[in-house]
């Protein structure tokens, strides 16, 4: 088989001592870059790009791809251990990862993240190997209308996320959308919602600013209040037996992990989407499809596995449009793309033909990098878990500092730091009033993408709304979105009835 030959060739390239060493180094660096709040794979890859001119292009891409990969795993670590998303791709991991850590099950969450990432990464690299050309064609079929439909699907997965209180969920989404609209209008360039005429609002409200505010600062306040400073996390020592136990637990989430892999991959290959929407959508789908949706957000292992699986699958997926179309599917691949041009390679439909050793070397290394990162991750779990042995009175200030640094680093603007603090307090209050906060985070990520796709579609069709249902692909996706809204609603009604029946039986 031709592909098998090429793949074997790719493995041979990947396991030359130099490449293998670079890959391991890349994974470890990525792991730490990803775990640091505010530093994500984008920064890691951008900072290391110039280093790669010292080695041949294939070695360079293997190294940078490993950094990218490692960072995807690493993002989960601070999400779970500290409750601050290490990278934007790991925000959804906080939802259940943090509660698990508080219940003394941090190691389970970390195993779930590592295994999910491994499966997601491996499935998508297999899809990449077998179906790259047809998948590239599929990505081309996605016009603005399809992108809009996909965003609707993402919102639909989140309607059920806020629990029973749909008005409060909608309110939370609306707040997120308003924040997403701040900044300069994408098409006309006119300023919108520049509050108090502060120049810092011109670059809009970065999604990570909101996420760090809510989950970093807000979480500290919440924990301090509920525990009065005395957080007791009983963490069993991490043994081989615990790993086996974790695997057993994880087995129940097999279906979630598989579906998140495919979902993540397909969202990843669509230009302009990337791993962050993919992980949020996977979380929403996992919750919608679960038998016990109420347990999500309270430490359900599937709520950790789903987003982590999807973000790794998507990061591999986003390499496909980069290589076959020359279009980055995520901010990080945009930098990799720049690297390829500098190395003298022209990404595009002919890269497979003109530079097979490069493409297959990269694919081969992705398989290896997956295996390698899951091993170091599980090996490092005892180290990560020991963080929780610190008393919360020590941990809280550390988390606070990390939040501030993480907010300042990307734009180097104090404006964003103040926003983090304000968001932290405001959303802590909203949370006390039982408003779900996750939908606001989703809305600020997807808002700009949705707006752009909607406006492009309508401009192209001169205001004809029917275009969304006239195109088969977009109609199909919209139909799925409607299903996703209707399904949980029915489920919820049944659930409510059951509960009422149970209540009656109990004589309450």
């Amino acid at each position, binding site marked *: 088989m031709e592909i098998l030959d090429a793949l074997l060739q790719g493995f041979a390239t990947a396991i030359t001592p130099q490449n293998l060493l670079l890959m391991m180094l890349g994974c470890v660096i990525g792991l730490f870059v990803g775990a640091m709040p505010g530093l994500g794979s984008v920064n890691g890859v951008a900072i290391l790009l*110039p280093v790669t001119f010292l080695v041949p292009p294939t070695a360079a891409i293997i190294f940078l791809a490993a950094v990218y990969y490692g960072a995807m795993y690493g993002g989960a670590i601070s999400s779970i251990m500290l409750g601050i998303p290490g990278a934007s791709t790991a925000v959804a991991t906080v939802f259940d990862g943090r509660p698990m850590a508080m219940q003394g099950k941090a190691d389970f969450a970390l195993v779930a993240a590592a295994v999910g990432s491994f499966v997601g990464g491996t499935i998508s690299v297999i899809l990449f190997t077998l179906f790259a050309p047809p998948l590239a064609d599929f990505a081309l079929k996605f016009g603005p209308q399809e992108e809009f439909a996909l965003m609707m699907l993402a919102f639909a997965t989140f309607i059920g996320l806020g629990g029973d209180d749909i008005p409060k969920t909608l309110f939370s989404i609306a707040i997120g959308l308003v924040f997403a609209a701040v900044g300069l209008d994408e*098409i006309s*360039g006119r300023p919108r919602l520049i509050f108090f005429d502060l120049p810092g609002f011109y670059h809009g409200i970065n999604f990570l600013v909101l996420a760090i505010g809510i989950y970093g600062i807000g979480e500290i306040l919440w924990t301090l209040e509920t525990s009065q400073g005395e957080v007791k996390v009983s963490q069993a020592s991490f043994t081989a037996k615990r790993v086996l136990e974790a695997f057993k637990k994880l087995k129940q989430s097999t279906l979630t992990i598989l579906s998140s892999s495919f979902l993540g991959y397909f969202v990843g290959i669509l230009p302009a989407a990337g791993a962050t929407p993919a992980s949020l959508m996977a979380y929403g789908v996992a919750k919608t499809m679960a038998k016990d949706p109420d347990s999500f957000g309270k430490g359900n292992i599937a709520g950790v596995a789903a987003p982590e699986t999807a973000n790794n699958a998507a990061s591999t997926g986003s390499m496909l449009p980069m290589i076959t179309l020359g279009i980055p599917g995520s901010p990080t691949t945009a930098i990799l793309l720049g690297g390829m041009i500098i190395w003298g390679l022209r990404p*595009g439909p002919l890269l497979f033909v003109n530079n097979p050793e490069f493409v297959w070397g990269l694919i081969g290394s992705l398989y290896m990098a997956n295996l390698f990162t899951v091993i170091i991750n599980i090996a490092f779990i005892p180290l990560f878990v020991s963080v929780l042995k610190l008393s919360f009175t020590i941990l809280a200030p550390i988390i606070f500092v990390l939040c501030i640094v993480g907010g300042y680093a990307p734009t180097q603007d104090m404006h964003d730091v103040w926003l983090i603090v304000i968001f932290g307090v405001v959303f802590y209050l909203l949370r006390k009033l039982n408003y779900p906060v996750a939908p606001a985070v989703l809305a600020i990520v997807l808002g700009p993408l949705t707006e752009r796709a909607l406006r492009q579609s309508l401009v192209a069709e001169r205001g004809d709304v029917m275009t969304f249902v006239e195109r088969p692909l977009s109609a199909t996706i919209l139909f799925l979105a409607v299903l996703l809204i209707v399904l949980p609603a029915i489920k919820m009604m049944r659930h409510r009835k059951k509960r009422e029946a149970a209540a009656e039986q109990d004589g309450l």
Partner: protein
Amino acid sequence: MNLRSIKKLALMPVIAVCSLAVMTSAAFAQWEPKKPVEFIIMAGTGGGADQMARLMQSIIQKNNFSSQPFIPINKPGGSGAEALRYLQDKSGDDHVVMITLNSFYTTPLQNPDLGVDISTFTPIGRMALDTFLLWVNSDSDINTLDDYVMQVKSKGKDWKMGGTGQGQEDSLLTGMLQNKFGFEVTYVPFPGGGTVAKNLIGKHIDSTVNNPSEQLGFYEAGQSRPLVAFTPDRLEQFPDVPTSAEVGHPDLVYFMQRSINGPPEMSAEAQAYYIDVFSKVFNSEDWQGFCASDGIFCNEWLAGDDLATYHQAEKAKHEELLKGMGLIN
């Protein structure tokens, strides 16, 4: 005193200041950045400006042209408005430079509220003149500009021309075509040239005026077809594609300048330093090789005041274009 001597007298201080400036810049040629330099890109990732900025960054690092790294930062919001405003607010900062598109001229013209005056920016150097071609999907039966005009006229508003933001280069060139041939198309804005190219191949739009670098990958794979180059001379990569003059429309020539500019009130020493760094980049083999392979003109280096003069002329030209399209008064 006659008029001439008055002029001379008036010029004296100017000359004195100029020579002083030259002297100080020579004396302080040793100025070096003390921290990494922010390299602002007034467009999104993956487009032409982005690729160039990252290439320059690597040339600077590889050849040790600067003791501090240049960190590319994309600020694509509002057709470059975000980047322009950012640079304006960085007034007096010696550690930030920006790579431009023609939205450097058009965006402030269209948004007077933005409070940006590009003549206050510190001109550093012009790195390249990017070129434009008219593209259709290779499945289309259009082979010449004449075919194109006929088809578009019959389709009218159903014809979708894709491009970057409204009022940016692609839309101006589209406006030039519309005025020239008397047709009217629907213009669909996308966030970057790479996305525009992809949408042409996916047939979500009917034609584009992409730069060569944005379409070359698809062109080489036989998926897109250039009809005409809006340049005075034929491009090396597309020897068979006629220029606009060859098909009878010599006035249809349009370039996109790619220049490096600093914020207002950058110190003269820093300006001299960056002029030196970027002239080295301009003359490097890597840069010239990239220009040749990507169909970009990199023959003439303009720096400092020459660049400022060029900016003024281009700004006036764009003002006319925008007025002609009714986008400004």
